C-alpha cells in the first residue's frame, strides 16, 4: 500500500515536472481496495483493471520499474512504450489490464472467466471498475452473461464517490451499487473500501464461492479518490472540507494504526517498510529514465501477430 502511494505521488510529481507526458490517473486513497483484493487471491487468479490501475497492477505483483518505464514511454515498459498508463498487461501474473475506455474491460474479464470455466482451471477473475463505469451498458450485458453462465468472476466496483466531476448521486439513480446485483440474481455486498481487512475478507469469501462454482458476485468497495481525477483537475466539483475529512480516513493511516495497535508494527518497522518502498520507487524512476526509447522502426513488424 505504501509503495503504491509513493508510486502514485511520484507520478503526480513527475507530471508536474514534465518528466512524464500524456496522461495518468492516480489511486491515492484507494490503495486498500487493490491490496486487500490482491491479498485474497491465489497465484492462478486473474485481474483486470481500469484507467486508474497502477495500484491494482502493483498489488498483483507488477514490477514497479517496468510499470514506471511504461509511463516514461521506454522500451523496457510493460507495453514497450506503446501503451502508457492505461494499457499494460502481464498475463504471467494473471494481470489483463485495461484499455482506456471506461467499462471496456468488464466483458474482457468475463471472457477470461469463461476461458477458466471452459478449461476448468479453478481460476477466479477479479474485474475492477468504478462507480462511473457501472453506468455503461456493457456492465449490464456482462453481468447478465456471467450470472447466466455461472462464471468465476468477481465484479469489484470501487465506489470512490466520483466519476470525474460527477458524484455518484448525480451519476447513479441508485447509489447503492451492490443492489444492482439483484437484477442478475447474484450476491451483492458492500464493504468499507478503506479497510484493508474488510476488503480482503469479503473478496476471499466470494472468491471461494465463485471458485466452487457458484458464479459471479458484485462487490462494492466504498472509498474516496483523494487525488484529482487526472492531471490538471482543479476539483471545482467538491469542497476542500470534504477532502480534508476524507484524508482523515486515509486507508494507509488506518492500517498503520491498526497494526501498531495490535503490535504487529512498530514505529521502527514502519519506517523500515516506508524506506524500502521509497527505495523501490526511486529505483523504478532511475530504471525508467535510463532505459532506451523504443525504436519507431520496430512498429512495422508489430501490427499483427
Amino acid at each position, binding site marked *: 500500500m505504501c509503495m503504491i502511494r509513493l508510486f502514485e505521488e511520484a507520478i503526480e510529481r513527475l507530471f508536474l515536472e514534465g518528466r512524464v507526458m500524456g496522461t495518468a490517473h492516480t489511486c491515492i486513497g484507494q490503495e486498500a481496495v487493490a491490496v486487500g483484493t490482491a491479498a485474497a487471491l491465489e497465484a492462478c487468479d486473474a485481474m483486470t483493471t481500469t484507467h486508474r490501475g497502477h495500484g491494482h497492477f502493483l498489488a498483483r505483483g507488477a514490477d514497479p520499474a517496468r510499470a514506471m518505464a511504461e509511463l516514461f514511454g521506454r522500451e523496457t515498459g510493460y507495453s*514497450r512504450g*506503446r501503451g502508457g498508463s492505461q494499457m499494460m*498487461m502481464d498475463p504471467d501474473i494473471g494481470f489483463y489490464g485495461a484499455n482506456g475506455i471506461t467499462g471496456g474491460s468488464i466483458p474482457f474479464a468475463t471472457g477470461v472467466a469463461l476461458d477458466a470455466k471452459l478449461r476448468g482451471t479453478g481460476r477466479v477473475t477479479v474485474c475492477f471498475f468504478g462507480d462511473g463505469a457501472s453506468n455503461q451498458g456493457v456492465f449490464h*450485458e456482462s453481468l447478465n452473461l456471467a450470472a447466466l453462465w455461472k462464471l468465476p468472476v468477481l465484479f469489484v466496483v470501487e465506489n470512490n464517490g466520483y466519476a470525474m466531476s460527477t458524484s455518484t448521486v448525480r451519476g447513479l439513480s441508485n447509489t447503492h451499487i451492490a443492489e444492482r446485483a439483484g437484477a442478475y440474481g447474484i450476491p451483492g455486498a458492500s464493504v468499507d473500501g478503506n479497510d484493508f481487512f474488510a476488503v480482503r475478507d469479503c473478496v476471499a469469501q466470494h472468491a471461494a464461492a465463485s471458485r466452487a462454482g457458484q458464479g459471479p458476485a458484485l462487490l462494492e468497495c466504498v472509498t474516496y479518490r483523494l487525488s484529482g481525477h487526472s492531471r490538471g483537475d482543479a476539483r471545482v466539483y467538491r469542497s476542500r472540507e470534504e477532502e480534508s475529512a476524507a484524508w482523515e480516513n486515509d486507508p494507509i493511516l488506518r492500517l498503520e494504526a491498526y497494526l501498531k495497535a495490535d503490535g504487529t508494527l512498530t514505529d521502527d518497522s514502519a519506517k523500515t517498510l516506508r524506506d524500502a518502498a521509497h527505495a523501490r520507487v526511486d529505483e523504478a524512476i532511475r530504471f525508467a529514465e535510463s532505459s532506451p526509447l523504443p525504436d519507431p522502426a520496430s512498429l512495422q513488424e508489430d501490427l*499483427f501477430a
Partner: protein
Amino acid sequence: MRSVTFTQLLRETLAAELRRDPSVFLMGEDIGVYGGSFGVTRGLIEEFGAERVRDTPISEQALTGVAIGAAVAGQRPVIEIMFMDFITLAVDQLVNMAAKLHPIYGRTCPLVIRTPPGGGRGYGATHSQSLERLFAGIPGLKIAAPSNASDASALLQTAIRDNNPVLFLEHKLLYPQRFDVDDELPAPLPFGFARVAREGDDLTIVAWSHQAFVAERAAAQLAAEGIDAEVIDLRTLCPLDTDTLIESARHTGRVMILEEGPKTGGFAAEIAAQIMEQAHEYLEQPVRRIAGADFPIPSAKNLEAACLPAYDSILALAREWMS
C-alpha cells in the same frame, strides 16, 4: 467433386475446426438449436454441445468483449453477429480493444467475427448494410470477404488459425448459392492473395464478396460480346493484395471496382487511390467505382434495387470503354 451451398460448406468447415482444435468454440445469438438466423450452425450443437456452440442473450457488445477476453486467455472464439448491421454495437470492443491487443500490448487475440452483410432481401435499412467500411483500414483488424464456397472454407480455416482478430463476411445472398467443390475441405488459404477469377486483356473488374460473384457473371457475358475482362476477387480486404491489383491495372489500363455499400467513403475508394498512386501512367481510363447509392437501403423492392449497384452498369461501362 460435389455441389454444396455456401452455407453447407461453412458449416462443415466450422465442424472440422471444432473437431481439430478444442480451443475453438462458437458463440452468438440463436446459433444453437435454432442454427443461426441463416442456418449456418444448424446441427452443430448436437455434435459439440452447448458449451462450444454457445447461445448468448442479445448483447452484441458484451459477447464480442467476452470473446476478446477469452481469446487473449487462450481460446479461439468464433462469434456470429446475426446481421452485419448489429456490429455497430461492437465497434468499441473491436476498434479499441481487439485491434490494439497485438500492436499495443503485444498479446495475441485469435478471434473470428462471422457476420452477413448485404441487401437484396428486402430486409430494410438496418438489416441490409455492407459495413466493412467501418473496419477496413483500422490497424490491427483483418477482413476476409469470400465470394464462393471453397474460398469461404479455406479462408475461414485461416481466420480461425490466425492469431489476430478477423472479420469474416458472409454475404447473405451467397448462403443459398450452390458451388462445385472438392469432396475434401480445401486447404487453408493465406490472407492477402487475391484470386484472378478470370484473366483478360481489355479491362479489370475488382470486387469482393457477393460483388465478385456478380463480376464473374458479368465477365462471362462480356466475353460473349467479345470483351475480355479480367476479374480480381480480392478474397481479403485487409491485408490487401496490392501487387495483383497493380499488375492487372498496368496490364489492362482500365479498372472498375464494384462495391455493394454506398459509394462515398467506401473501400473501393482506397483501392482506386492505390491503383492510381501506383499505376497512374498505365491507365487508359480513370479508375471507376460502381457502388451502392448514397442512401440507406429502403425496404420496397424497387427502391432497394435502385440503391444497390446495378449489374447493367458493369456491362454498360465495359461497353463504353471498349467501343
